[in-house]
């Protein structure tokens, strides 16, 4: 896989709910090995975009390509099998089951027991707190610990593309830094990321490439450096947040 190839290609996607289109002819791509961010005001279609990419929502038009292969018709579980992972905005785990069971479920598609054990060890190495709490119910974890569990759950499939919906929500600034620290380190190990964020400043400081959505379309894109230099982004944001 050449470092410049796109692990994810979204082409001309139009999608919405009940007849109204939230996304209009949207296109973006994630270069493999990068952390790509998506920002935009409320209602711009960020969550809808993620739903379409992961497969929860069918677009009325357009294609989703994973590593050049079209996955547009596939249900989420098959896209997971092909190397996508997804962490939703709120509670993307199972509170009534233990930490260990949550991880086991994350590895639902991994048939090889040895591989599962290896990956679980990697998760526990990265998040010692999860090892400590492995027999506790996930519902008893704090907000930050739950996020880490979700990242751990995601790691169990060793995805090539991880999709995160507002990972900083509900976390203190220190925890946000911790989470993004892990994301960066996983990215450096080869995992590509597509991250939607409200916390624009944080995203600008860590991402390799940014897309700014507005009204269901791709308004601006570029490196964080380009975008913060460019006054329009500030205008988009200050204007929208008002």
């Amino acid at each position, binding site marked *: 896989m050449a470092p410049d190839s796109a692990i994810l290609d979204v082409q001309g996607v139009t999608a919405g709910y009940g007849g109204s289109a939230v996304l209009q002819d949207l296109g973006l791509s994630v270069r493999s090995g990068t952390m790509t961010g998506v920002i935009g005001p409320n209602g711009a279609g960020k969550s809808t975009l993620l739903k379409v990419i*992961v*497969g*929860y*929502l069918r677009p009325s038009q357009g294609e989703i390509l994973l590593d050049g292969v079209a996955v547009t018709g596939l*249900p*989420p*579980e098959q896209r*997971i*099998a092909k190397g996508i*992972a*997804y*962490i*939703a905005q*709120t*509670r*993307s*785990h*199972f*509170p*009534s*089951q233990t930490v260990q*069971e949550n991880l*086991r*479920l*994350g590895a*639902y*598609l991994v048939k090889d027991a040895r591989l599962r054990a290896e990956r679980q060890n990697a998760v526990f190495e990265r998040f010692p707190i999860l090892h400590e709490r492995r027999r506790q119910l996930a519902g008893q974890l704090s907000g930050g610990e739950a996020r880490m569990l979700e990242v751990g*759950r995601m790691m169990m*499939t060793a995805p090539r593309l991880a999709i995160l919906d507002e990972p900083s929500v509900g976390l203190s600034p220190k925890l946000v830094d911790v989470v993004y620290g892990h994301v960066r380190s996983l990215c450096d190990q080869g995992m590509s990321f597509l991250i939607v964020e409200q916390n624009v400043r944080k995203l600008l400081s860590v991402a390799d490439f940014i897309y700014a959505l507005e009204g269901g379309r791709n308004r601006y894109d570029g490196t964080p450096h380009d975008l913060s230099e460019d006054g329009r982004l500030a205008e988009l944001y200050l204007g929208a947040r008002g």
Partner: protein
Amino acid sequence: MLLDLVYFAALGVMTGGLYGLLGLGLNLIFGVMRVINVSHGEMLTLGAYTAIVMGLGGVTSPWAAIVAAVMVVTLIGFLIARYLLQPLTVESRIDEQRGMVLSLGLSLVLANLVLAVFGPEYQRVPGKLAEGSIVLGDLIIEKQRLIILIASLVLAAALMAFLRFTLTGKAIRAVGENPEAAQASGISVRKIHLLTFSIGSALAGAAGALITPATYAFPAMGLNYTLYAFSVVIIGGLGSVWGAIFAGFLLGIVESLSVIWLPSGYNTIVGPVLMLFTLIIRPQGLLGVKPGRA
């Protein structure tokens, strides 16, 4: 008087096992798929009539009949889930209200199909699960009823072990708790729904086949049992497996004991009344969880 109490209580325990089994199946279906399956009792009817057909066909062993009943009802449950419930599924969730109304239509169709094919007469199977009774002092308990109780407990325990310890069982619980996260783990919610409905129906079918040696079957029996199942599920708590079992026994015992104090025939009011009290005073039931689904 004490002997009466003990006798009726014992009887209640035995019917309670059955109620618990029914409630378990309904609870599973509701907990995972959020569908109120009004036709649940009809699965019991189909199980009972499969046993009757086996009996008419010359099969004398009730156990073979039970196995056949479970197989038949599981298949029917699967077909219902695949062709009637799946179309109502949007983004991994089933439309609750449409599912409920659909199950109403199903109960009409199934109960009357049975009526059309077999007629309204009460039917019996030729065999018995066991002959004779156990005598404990002044208490006489039919062995057969005891076996039904034990079978119910075994089935319930098997279900609970399956849900708790196997990967598929955990996946089922996961889908019930958070369908989106389950899908994000690679679990096919579609397949889990099919499996869950089949298992729930199978439990009801087993219950139906279990009771036929002890009592008779008639086409409208399903609706009565559906009402019991609902009472059990509400009293025990929607979504709680232990709750269903406990509530089943509670309902069975109270209803049985009520025969002593209430004029005859009124014991069937116990279920609705207990359900009403639970709904008014503590809607989540004895062991239920407040509906906090993702």
